């Protein structure tokens, strides 16, 4: 079709902005980012050094936007970026980067490396070097509405199922409500307990809420593949839905990148502020807790630990709310080493789970999570991201570790007072 190197180079020239220029010229080549990346620490292969993953973009920046680089280009002293090179870099830009942002945090000169990887993906995608799995997921999201091909029919089937199970009706397309809840396909297909939990918690807290038939899917493959135009199309569905229903707050579900896509990238993608507020479900629950609208009874007595989703904790800065919530219902909560801001990624974010060829590497990188878990030996693992949850379950199964993974929202829902009544 129409992807080409020329297009990739043009897009890269367009996305290289002042922050990227200052990052590239500030890099002191210290290599500290390598130690922050689980793909490097678990394989020991220096090609996984985060800043190295940007090498073609750095060269392009130098050749196009610096005086010395231009002179070198004129004199034929610099190596032009080739299609084959970008093809070679696919593994580094997609397969071995979950956009977890740990490298950005350790950089001594403050380079936001993950910001640059995200921008680099713009050029990679339009030059035809995005991995097949992510391209397909994006195609399904744009054409059918969800990366897993989930349609409103499937959502309605789940709604019916939950209504029968809980006896609570699930509102759809109700105008003027306080909260508009989103779902991730993973939750619709694999973890329907999330929808059930939301219904029970909202009823308990006495809040009005709704699902939206034109904007139910929270995930955004456009962000993962790195095509802002498509990401804008996808996020616009939510924005239009929320504005049509005049929702006060849109709840991003237990999904990491959906939160980033909607809360941080969203307004920039559509070019204006939202008329509604965006909160992650964990933030909403903690807010209800502080308002005294969320009460629980009983405690989990087994040993629990929490896996911080990167996009929520590190990129989003939401660290304390989930702990407040767990402590409401857990007697034996332990923290993993590096928990919170510096938590290690599950290895599946940023679209990596969608890439079939990255599976072996992802399992290798999971050894980091394994060692974190071995340090605290929990009975169960709690998290607040469906992609983390799936990746964790796969990794735990591969390494034959018997640690069930549960979502935070459902644990809270299980301890609602009316549960026993």
């Amino acid at each position: 079709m129409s992807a080409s190197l020329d297009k990739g180079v043009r897009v890269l020239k367009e996305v290289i902005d002042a922050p990227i220029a200052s990052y590239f010229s500030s890099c002191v080549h210290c290599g500290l980012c390598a130690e922050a990346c689980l793909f490097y620490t678990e394989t020991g292969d220096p090609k996984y050094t985060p800043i190295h993953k940007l090498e073609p973009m750095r060269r392009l920046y130098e050749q196009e936007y610096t005086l010395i680089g231009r002179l070198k280009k004129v004199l034929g002293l610099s190596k032009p970026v080739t299609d084959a090179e970008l093809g070679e870099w696919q593994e580094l830009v997609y397969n071995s980067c979950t956009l977890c942002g740990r490298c950005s945090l350790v950089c001594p000169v403050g380079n936001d490396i993950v910001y640059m990887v995200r921008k680099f993906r713009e050029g990679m995608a339009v030059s035809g070097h995005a991995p097949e799995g992510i391209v397909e997921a994006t195609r399904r999201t744009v054409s059918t509405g969800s990366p897993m091909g989930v349609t409103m029919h499937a959502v309605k089937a789940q709604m019916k199922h939950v209504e029968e199970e809980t006896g609570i009706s699930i509102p759809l397309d109700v105008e003027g409500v306080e909260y508009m809840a989103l779902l991730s396909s993973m939750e619709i297909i694999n973890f329907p307990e999330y929808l059930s939990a939301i219904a029970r918690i909202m009823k308990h807290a006495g809040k009005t809420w709704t699902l939206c038939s034109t904007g139910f899917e929270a995930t955004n493959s456009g962000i993962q593949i790195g095509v802002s135009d498509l990401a804008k199309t996808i996020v616009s569905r939510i924005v239009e839905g929320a504005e049509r229903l005049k929702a006060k707050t849109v709840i991003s579900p237990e999904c990491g990148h959906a939160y980033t896509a909607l809360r941080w990238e969203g307004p920039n993608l559509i070019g204006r502020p939202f008329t509604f507020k965006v909160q992650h479900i964990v933030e909403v629950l903690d807010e209800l807790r502080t308002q005294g609208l969320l009460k629980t009874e009983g405690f989990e007595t087994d040993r629990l630990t929490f896996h911080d989703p990167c996009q929520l904790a590190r990129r989003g800065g939401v660290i304390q709310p989930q702990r407040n919530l767990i402590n409401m219902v857990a007697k034996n909560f332990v923290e993993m080493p590096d928990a919170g801001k510096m938590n290690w990624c599950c290895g599946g974010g940023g679209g990596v789970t969608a890439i079939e060829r990255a599976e072996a590497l992802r399992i290798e990188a999971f050894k980091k999570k394994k060692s974190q878990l071995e340090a605290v030996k929990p009975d169960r693992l709690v998290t607040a991201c469906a992609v983390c949850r799936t990746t964790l379950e796969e990794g735990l199964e591969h390494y034959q570790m018997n640690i069930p993974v549960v979502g935070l929202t459902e644990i809270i829902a299980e301890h609602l007072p009316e549960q026993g009544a």
Partner: protein
Amino acid sequence: MQGPLIEILARQGITRRTFMKYCATLASLMALPPSAGRAMAEAMAAAGVATKRPSVIWLPFQECTGCTESITRSHSPTLESLIFDVVSLDYQETLMAAAGHQAEEALHNAMKAGGYLLIVDGSIPLGLDGAYSCIAGRSNLELLKEAASGAAAIVAMGSCAAFGGLPHAKPNPTGAVSVSDVVKDKPIVNIPGCPPIPVVITGVLAHFLTFGSLPELDKHGRPKAFYGETIHDRCYRRPFYDQGKFAKTFDDEGARNGWCLFELGCKGPVTYNACATVKWNGGTSWPVESGHGCLGCSEPDFWDAGGFYKALSTPANPLKMASAAVAAGAVAGVAVSFANRGKKRAAASAHETTTLADLEK
């Protein structure tokens, strides 16, 4: 402490306390432990009592007698000269009363006994079989070899004996060399300087008397106690150097204000000697204090180390072109920035909305 030395000193109006203070000062100058001061005093007093005082032979070769001047006249009758009351200076051409055959006889008697300390000042000419400098018809080379064979240790006094000095300067017509170029099998201590500081000479002698050995030496065979730091590091004008305040000529405001003489050719930064701390003429002054830069006379080949008034290095003046550089940088920066903006705008205006079809080739 009692004894003839103390009595001699008392006759010269020097109290026992002054003598002890001198020895303590000497010990501290040489960075010896405090107890060394008393040990020195006792050793020197004992040497004065002994029937046979340690023998010292002083041989002058191709020299100007400045070293002798330094240790004797310029400091006499200060305490430094007293040390010669505790050694038997058996041969010193300038100082000895004897002359001719009597003098040569004294030398031979002293050499026969052996175990003496040999002090040499002046370089040894090797050209024309040593004919450039002879005493009693014998060349300096021959005399040195003979005297060195029975010496316990040799002190090469002054830059000529230590490094060849002025006679060794290019083109070195006499083929002058240092003591250590000739004698290889004896402990040699170099006391360079043109001339050396008197207290350095007496300090080395006191060390030899007290401990029977030579003090710790640096790579040029100089006692570390006196040659361990540069003139520059101990110079009282060093703060001006650090502040970048330099005299540009010998009669400018900087010179009058006593600023650093680096730009007037001071060799202090590369010269190891004790002038800045010990000073000259009984602690009166020293070259830099009198307004002239250090010549570097205690360093090998100082005479050939470039002009005395040529700065060791001329510091660049980066600020001279500062405004031009800022202007050029600003122009270049603005030009590059406009070019970059243009390029980015062109890329942005060429933006075609990416569709699903654009994700594959």
